[in-house]
């Protein structure tokens, strides 16, 4: 678990997503599926600590390893709206 100086950042690889939807079932505050093709979209990339357990579980449950969770410095800005605009 990260300490006070780090936090978890979620990134997704939409090119490998198979649209199984297990991430949405596991953490629907963080993941959703695009209507047009079912591909995963991120609702937030820097989730609050209360969601860490479920976000990590969603990453493990993904059958195509499309979700990555990494520890980043606590002051890391959100990247949503840039490369993950869905």
């Amino acid at each position: 678990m990260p300490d006070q100086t780090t936090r978890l950042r979620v990134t997704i690889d939409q090119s490998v997503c198979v649209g199984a939807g297990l991430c949405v079932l596991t953490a629907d505050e963080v993941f959703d599926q695009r209507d047009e093709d079912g591909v995963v979209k991120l609702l937030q990339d820097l989730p609050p600590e209360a969601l860490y357990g479920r976000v990590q579980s969603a990453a493990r449950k993904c059958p195509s390893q499309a979700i990555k969770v990494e520890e980043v410095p606590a002051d890391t800005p959100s990247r949503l709206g840039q490369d993950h605009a869905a």
Partner: protein
Amino acid sequence: MTAAPSRVVIAGAGQGGLQAASTLREAGYAGAITLVGDEACLPYQRPPLSKGMLNGAFDAQALVLEELAFFARQQITLMVDVRIDKIDRAEHRLRLSDGSSLDYGHLVLATGARNRLLPDHQRALQGVHSLRSLDDGASLCRELGGARNLVVIGGGFLGLEVASVAAGLGTQVTVVEATGRVMERVASREVSEFFQCAHEAAGVRFALDARVGSIEDVDGRVAAVVLDSGTRLAADLVLVAIGVQPNDELAQEAGLAVDNGILVDAWLRTSDPAISAIGDCSAFPFQLDGGQRVRLESVQNAVDQGAYIARRLMGQSAPYAQVPIFWSEQAGRRLQMAGVTRRGDASVVRGDIAQGQFSVFRYRADRLVCVESVNRPGDHMAARKLLAAGLSPSPLQASDLAFDLRQYASAALAA
């Protein structure tokens, strides 16, 4: 609303059982949870065993669904490498293979299914494999790299997925299928024929309407599969993938109603209200098909039923009514299915089969029951909405690419 039981025991630590345990905690359940698994490892996911794990894209450690720390944090007792030998329903007590016993307030049977064996022939020959567990996957993986001739017995999802990976590794693959087309039980003729062609283009050969007469060996190592017709297929590796049977004996011995799966009602309760059954082992009344009983073998079904049972134990009263979904990856194509189709359903094609981008809408009478999509994920997403809402576009609408399914679903839902 009935009070939640004081102690929930989940028999089976697969994806469904694990989901039941974790959703119970998420829903605020404060009682004891025990998850009992018969494999000697942490719960793991099986879908990559026939796909990415075989070509090295996925390693075994990545299959683990939750690490030990999760179980400690969630106060879920995980027992591994132990079987449940007997259910004493009168005492609400389980007898375990390690000699201990375990009391339950509510018992969730998530015992899954096991692979069918080839009658008569499946002696312990080197090179003859089956694929369901992590160990099975590792052992198949070890042999696949060096194999020259793989014979896959059974042209269902599992067999075809493995055939696809093996062909990609340069192995000569022959698929032996007992019926007239691949995926005969679960998919439309259009989808079967499309995938057979796609596999053939990748070098896979097929023997349809074919039955295995015998398996030949040399010094205990498989050498050939001989068909009833007399055709001899050279083989240094064989995969038997002829379907599964539900693990329902434990329930049956306890006197619960069983018929190709443990029979449950619309709330997934067995004939004993203190016992529920979910996932591959459970035969439930399918709400989207007039309550006709169905037993599904899929991750989505196991996970959704696991989550459902947790919420039901916490007081939710609605019956189980999720739209079944399924996916497969073969010959570089993605097949996505929503709903359940049966032999005799009518097919309406949307898109272009020759281009490899199409969906098959399956109708029973005038009602849409299933949509199979090949590289048309948008149709799949729309189909999930249509089926959940009980909407049936007309066959003419379904086949018209200018007809916007998403808009139709949204408009009908809003009306």
